[in-house]
């Protein structure tokens, strides 16, 4: 044949059938995202180098880094996020294992409930905890009623521990969902074979379930970590002056103090921590194919 072995242009494969290169179709949504998200984000970074006095300087950074409020907020944010993540992982794993492998009537309903739970806003949890552990709430009321004491023993709600409890409560379903999905992929035959070979439940969980769950745990855990770093509603609703996280600091500086350069500096720090962890999450979840 005369025209044998003519290489088809390799580029052609990435074209849509109409001949318009497929990257052109990606431009409109990217342009929209750029206008309403990336460009504003860029402005925040720019503003953080523009003090109110004019000019360009990193003075706002120096000021913010020097303030104890910022350093405390940074520390609180990070340890709260790490603590909540660990709590969610442990609790979520235990609950998901029971739902998946010790099935009970209504287990489906519980899984459904968890889905619905995810669609509620986080501050509801804090609101509920106010009634349960608040200064005049249920637990303290019971205590003062029983002992006649003037004050109940549960005063942790306005401390970081209250925030920690609320965050673990709210974010545990975020770990359970990917775990349940991963567990549904485990061949139950494996578990039956293992137990027929004489393995006890603890051993099966450790040697079969846990390795299978690791990718989902890693993915769910890093997502929760990022969400905790960014959590605002829970902290706002505790109304505690003692607990300030980075998002709270951004809100305080911008809305309450109208210190925009300062707010932008804190925002830049918060973004870099969160996006850093988020990048890690993406890498991890792609590695493990979750």
């Amino acid at each position, binding site marked *: *044949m005369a*025209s*044998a*072995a*003519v*290489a*088809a242009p390799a580029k*052609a*494969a990435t074209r849509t*059938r109409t001949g318009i290169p497929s990257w052109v179709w990606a431009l409109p949504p990217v342009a929209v995202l750029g206008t309403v998200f990336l460009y504003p984000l860029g402005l925040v970074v720019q503003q953080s180098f523009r003090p109110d006095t004019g000019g360009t300087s990193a003075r706002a950074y120096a000021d913010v880094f020097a303030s104890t409020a910022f350093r405390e907020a940074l520390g609180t944010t990070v340890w709260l996020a790490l603590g909540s993540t660990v709590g969610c992982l442990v609790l979520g794993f235990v609950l998901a294992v029971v739902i998946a492998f010790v099935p009970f009537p209504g287990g489906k309903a519980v899984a459904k409930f968890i889905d619905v739970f995810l669609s509620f806003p986080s501050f509801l949890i804090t609101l509920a905890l106010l009634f349960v552990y608040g200064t005049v709430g249920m637990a303290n009321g019971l205590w003062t009623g029983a002992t006649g004491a003037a004050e109940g023993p549960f005063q942790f709600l306005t401390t970081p521990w209250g925030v920690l409890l609320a965050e673990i409560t709210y974010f545990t379903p975020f770990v359970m969902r990917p775990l349940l999905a991963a567990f549904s992929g485990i061949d139950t035959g494996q578990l039956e074979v293992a137990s027929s070979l004489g393995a006890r439940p603890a051993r099966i969980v450790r040697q079969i379930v846990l390795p299978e769950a690791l990718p989902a745990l890693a993915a769910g855990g890093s997502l929760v970590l990022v969400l905790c770093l960014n959590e605002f509603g829970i902290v706002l609703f505790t109304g505690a002056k003692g607990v300030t996280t980075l998002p709270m600091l951004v809100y305080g500086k911008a809305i309450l103090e109208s210190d925009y350069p300062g707010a932008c500096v804190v925002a830049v720090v918060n973004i870099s921590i969160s996006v850093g962890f988020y990048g890690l999450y993406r890498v991890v979840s792609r590695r493990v194919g979750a």
Partner: protein
Amino acid sequence: MSSGLRFDRVSVAYGGTTVLDSLDLTVEPGEVMALLGPSGSGKTTALRAVAGFVRPAAGRVFIGDRDVTGLPPHRRGIGMVVQQYALFPHMRVEDNVAFGLKAQKAPKDEIRGRVAEALEMTGMAAYARRHPRELSGGQQQRVAIARALAIRPGVLLLDEPLSALDARLRSGMLSELARLHRELPHVSILYVTHDQVEALTLADRIAVMDKARLQDVGTPRELYRAPRTEFTASFVGNANLLPVTVGSGGVDFSGTELKVPTRDAARGTTATLCVRPHLVGLGAGPNALTGSVIEVQWRGATHRLYIEVAGHRVMADLRELRQPPALGDEITVHFGPEDAVLLSAGVTPERSAPVAVRETVGAADQGSRDG
């Protein structure tokens, strides 16, 4: 519309791996060509190159006289049926069948007529208002065929169309497909399968694929009676492949003289002798081989014996025996000289040069390999 199709040195590679290597093949107008091969042999890739879902790294694909290599799938005018049918689940049967005509903006009246015709032809007219999920596998299969036929393609591509059906339905669908082809004598069909029975039953010619290459092509009878390569011999039907040395007027198999046609094979060269198990007979006769029975399998209508002859296993398929031999029994089997085919050894299947000359069977395909 009768068109036929032609592969002209078509190569396809994915990420450096060649999955189809310089395929040259012509399907005549109205011909049924089966692409037969194990999984990974490149047969599906060849079909997808015709459909336009993979782009050849080299070579051209022609439908009729039209070079379609650079054309997008929707401008190729082919009908295609895939393994899982891919019926649109959100459309009724009639809308599935009408899809191609609507997409090409055919006039409304014409659409109605052609949908009815296609459904009639596949025996699915009574199911027009159903949804695909309400149909059995075999019925879905028919709808998929009706959908492909409604656009009146010149070329029909069938990619393992029967492999999702159970054995009983499959043989029924095989005769259905044969009937359809008789009713549509102008449509060329490219039929991808790994099942030799489907290929032998349906195809006018079979192209045997292995390791990304075309190994052999010919009518079913040619390939079965006179395979050119060991691969064809063992993939199309069962075969005893015995290592032999060519002598004069026969071959030497581990010290036994066998009288078989040697054609132009040179004396003293090594070669492979192909004998079909069902052409092996029990007892003494021409080309007798004696050995001990190492396995007996009862298969209902037949017995298969495995006999060890001079360190080689020989299979014999015999009509059910009243008194099958016991394991370890010494028995003699034989085969007629005309039932053996000498394959040249030392010839890699990729460059198959036939030793067995093929005048014994009709030379129907001589025009097809010079494309």
